[in-house]
């Protein structure tokens, strides 16, 4: 952490042990905000780097993002048709319901995986150049938004195929995904730090996320009874995925209270996590 002060022409930086503690929490928020604002260009460059690096040596490139939902949804349709399990009752075509749900879900899943591994992957760079590590994590999480955009195109194709007319409030999507983006960024920041110290985090993460996906009604309808119904009721991720989906498909959000509560929860998580990250990021650079 650095205490900075603008002088007449030059920036003065001081490095001291624990010096972030001396400046107080309020000024830390200002510091974080300034850092993010100053490093917008860097964030964009890192985002571009991740994007190009991922898709440059690949023929179908960004359309890989379409394959995952097609396969998962296809599997579920087959399981359902052979009577192995029931997807629950729903008013809209299942393919649309599931692909749209997955699009919102993978903002969380892809975002967290990418950001949690970002610091470790950049290891040598972090120990050799001093640059904004927040930018790095945020840029990595940004990958999820690219996949999201591609999957939304897939959803639009499905709308045409099934002759389904979505509600005009589909235009509110960018606003509706803000909470899930905040939650992803917050958890991604803190997990990237922990992963820097304990590699176990990165190893366990994709398993945990898959587990959560089956726990959350993304690919099946909201359960009405049983343990799963109770878990769903207190699962913020369900509301963050279901509310935008309901809005697109029906034009109304049934669980708006749950969505509001989950949004507040997400904001709180994000705030706490970025604060923790800011206070401890250089500690991790020396352990990475």
């Amino acid at each position, binding site marked *: 952490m650095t205490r900075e002060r603008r002088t007449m022409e*030059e920036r*003065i930086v001081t490095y001291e*042990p624990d010096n972030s*503690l001396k400046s107080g929490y309020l000024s830390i928020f200002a510091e974080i905000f300034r850092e993010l604002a100053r490093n917008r260009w860097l964030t964009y460059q890192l985002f571009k780097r991740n994007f190009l690096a991922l898709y440059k040596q690949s023929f179908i490139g960004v359309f890989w993002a379409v394959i995952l939902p097609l396969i998962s949804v296809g599997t579920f349709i087959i399981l359902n048709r052979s009577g192995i399990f029931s997807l629950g009752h729903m008013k809209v075509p299942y393919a649309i319901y599931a692909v749209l749900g997955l699009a919102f879900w993978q903002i969380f899943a892809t975002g967290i995986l990418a950001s949690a591994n970002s610091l470790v992957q950049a290891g040598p760079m972090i120990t050799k*150049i001093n640059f904004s590590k927040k930018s790095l994590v945020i840029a990595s999480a940004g990958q999820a938004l690219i996949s999201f955009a591609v999957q939304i195109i897939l959803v639009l194709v499905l709308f045409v195929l099934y002759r389904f007319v979505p509600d005009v409030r589909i235009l509110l999507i960018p606003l509706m995904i803000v909470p899930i983006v905040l939650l992803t960024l917050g958890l991604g920041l803190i997990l990237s730090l922990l992963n820097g*110290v*304990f590699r176990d985090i990165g190893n366990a993460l994709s398993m945990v996320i898959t587990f959560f996906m089956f726990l959350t009604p993304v690919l099946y309808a909201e359960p009405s009874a049983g343990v799963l119904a109770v878990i769903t009721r207190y699962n913020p991720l369900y509301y963050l995925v279901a509310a935008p989906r309901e809005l697109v498909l029906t034009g109304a959000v049934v669980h708006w209270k749950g969505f509001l509560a989950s949004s507040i929860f997400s904001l709180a998580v994000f705030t706490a996590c970025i604060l923790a990250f800011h*206070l401890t990021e*250089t500690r991790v650079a020396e352990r990475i």
Partner: protein
Amino acid sequence: MKNDIAIKVENVSKKYCKTLKRSMLYGISDISRNLIGLGSRPGMLRRDEFWGVDDISFELEKGQVLGLIGPNGAGKTTVLKLMNGIFWPDKGRITLKGRIGALIEVGAGFHPMLTGRENIYLNASILGMTKKETDRKFDEIVEFSGIADFLDTPVKFYSSGMFVRLGFSVAVHSEPDILLVDEVLAVGDSAFRAKCYKRIGEILPGSAVVLVSHNMVNISRLCENTIVLEGGRAVFHGETDLAIDRYHSLLKTAGEEPRGIFTCPSMNSFSCRVLNRDVNYGDNLKIELSFDSSEDIRTGLCLMAVSEADVYVGQTDFSEAFKEIKRGKNRFILEAGPACLRKGEYEVTITVLDVSKKQTIVHAVNCDEFVLRGPRGYGVEYQIPYIKIY
């Protein structure tokens, strides 16, 4: 802070942990303590910890170059990283004025899959340059690196030299007020190295430079003052010339230079002696070679290399004059000079290969030594012309 002081390092210490698992535990405990608003008790050592950098202080003004030298593991790079803000100090304080440019590893921010052009923008942004600045400097960066033809080739297809040139080029064009350089000048060919020195000379008036190097020629050429580090402590801080002496005496006490004479089977009782072991600056060196040979040998490449504390300083190639070895006793005197070297203690290594250059006839490492007296001052890597053999 006084106006023209760019770097102020006050009693800075930094601890390291020897074991990985403990390091993880300490890391998590430091992080948790910071999070709940407690200090991390940085001043005390826990089990398996040691001070990697111990109580270092110095100040540097704009336009000055400070050298940091010392044996491996003395803490040189850690000091640079502390100044760059990559690590926090555990004790003391570092104050820096202006933009910091660090050449700790050239091209560390490069991505192999991206093209040279994309990497210039990426690396520039990592080093803190804005888009406008990068646009403005772009042509200059490309020109300096000399890779204009490969600008749109992915960096992974670059040779290591091209990679380094591009990395250095981006870094020196960020116009830092403070430039931290870690041993990166050792890379690239000599023409590019010369260009780098010129560039450092250009940015020098407006910036303070800290240079870490094992190459004493570079240190003595660039730095007025030098700190000698050993085991994390500054054991000397002052004039570069005295610092280099101190460094060499450190290396001497740390361990004798390897010595060894290897000869091919047909050669016996080889000896190499410096006849004038006290040489004045500009004098000729006289070296006596004597041996028995059981056959006639046509020699190919014959070299005498001179090193100071195991650091290569210069050589003379006497292949032209030393073309054959006769069967029986041989005795030659090799005279080389003038020895325009920095004052100091030097070691002599003799290498003789046969005409096909496939077999080593003699490799006598550090077989004798001499002391050069004379002016303190700048030595250069030096080709010592041989004069004659008799």
